[in-house]
């Protein structure tokens, strides 16, 4: 017999064990919203005891087992948009090597690495500002309000970053913000938020997003420039008649036979960069999930 909404959520979480962490977070948020609204509506009929009301609400909503199986069923049918079958191992090596150009995950990862410099800067600035203001405002009464505002904003940012990660890296992330109770005092809310280890994990994640963003951005831009330079050098030399190789003061023309070699090397480097990007994207997605998703 389930005695409270919290207990229902605990059982539901247990039932969903082994499912995707993001699915679990969504399922808990939905259930908490529905059960609390339904109970609030029941509250208007005072002749019923609270326990009775909860039993009836759960009867209509479905037991934790039923709810869990409904989520698992739908989850099985809806995969993140970029998720695809991994290429069969029996494909020839060359096809697998070049297949990266056809993989939206690789392009998504490159885009993610480029934009992470911008988003990383924004996250970093907000985290550092918010955190230090929360600390220094703590001596004022309104400091409490600011601290609550800051901790709540962390969840919003975590959800946003989750959407970006799912969209570009194809890793399933939560679609719902975690639910928070409305009828508690500001102080208790702050306490709840501060006790939540995910607040601290997301703080660390957002803090590290700037250095990571700088590394990602630099890496992609550098490799891109090298491969484009290699591919373009023979072409530019043939048009401008300007010697492409300079060693010290001496300048040399690129021999004609070397042109295909340069182009091929440039192409090779870019293809490897795409593979590298895809790999980093997958690793980053897993890391983001570990830090931003409530278990």
């Amino acid at each position, binding site marked *: 017999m389930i005695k409270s909404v919290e207990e229902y959520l605990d059982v539901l979480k247990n039932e969903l064990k082994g499912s995707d962490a993001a699915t679990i977070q*969504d*399922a808990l948020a*939905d*259930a*908490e*919203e*529905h059960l*609390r*609204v*339904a109970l*609030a*509506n029941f509250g208007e009929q005072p002749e019923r005891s609270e326990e009775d009301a909860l039993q009836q609400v759960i009867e*209509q*909503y*479905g037991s934790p087992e*039923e*709810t869990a199986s*409904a*989520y698992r*069923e*739908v*989850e099985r*049918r*809806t995969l993140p948009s970029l998720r695809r079958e991994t290429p069969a191992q029996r494909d020839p090596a060359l096809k697998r090597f070049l297949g990266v150009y056809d993989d939206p995950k690789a392009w998504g990862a490159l885009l993610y690495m480029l934009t992470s410099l911008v988003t990383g800067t924004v996250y970093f600035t907000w985290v550092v500002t918010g955190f230090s203001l929360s600390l220094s405002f703590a001596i004022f009464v309104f400091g409490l309000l600011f601290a609550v505002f800051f901790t709540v904003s962390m969840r919003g940012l975590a959800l946003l970053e989750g959407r970006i990660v799912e969209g570009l890296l194809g890793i399933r992330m939560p*679609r*719902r*913000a975690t*639910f928070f*109770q*409305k*009828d508690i005092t500001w102080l208790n809310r702050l306490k709840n938020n501060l006790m939540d280890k995910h607040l601290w994990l997301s703080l660390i994640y957002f803090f590290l997003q700037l250095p990571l963003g700088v590394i990602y951005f630099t890496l992609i831009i550098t490799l891109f420039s090298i491969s484009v330079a290699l591919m373009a050098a023979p072409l530019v030399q043939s048009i401008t008649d300007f010697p492409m190789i300079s060693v010290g003061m001496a300048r040399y023309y690129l021999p004609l036979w070397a042109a295909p070699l340069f182009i091929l090397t440039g192409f090779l480097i870019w293809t490897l960069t795409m593979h590298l990007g895809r790999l980093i994207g997958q690793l980053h997605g897993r890391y983001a999930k570990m830090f931003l998703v409530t278990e």
Partner: protein
Amino acid sequence: MIDSSTLTKKFQKEMNAGIASLVLLSVLDKSQEPMYGYQIAKLLEEYSGDTSFMKQGALYPVLHSLENSGLLESKVEPSVSGPPRRYYEITNDGHETLVVWQSVWKQMNSFVDRAIKGG
């Protein structure tokens, strides 16, 4: 002995899988304004009368997947009393898809009816 109630439950569940999407889209298409989960569940309870076709909890994952495929949109709004609520609204794509689905449903319906009656 075949356990007919388990089989019936399974049959109901399999049928619900597609129908729930059609029903939810239709409800949100008819509605003048965005609705939240509990509101939708209450309305469906009214439609279904005494028999309950599916648990309310099973509606939410379907709403999810409809939103994920771009047929619905949602936003969270704080409420005067109680927890914040997520409001769902049908998109243009959703409306167009619904028109197709409804005609599929009509054909399906008459096909099944004929099969049951035997011609």
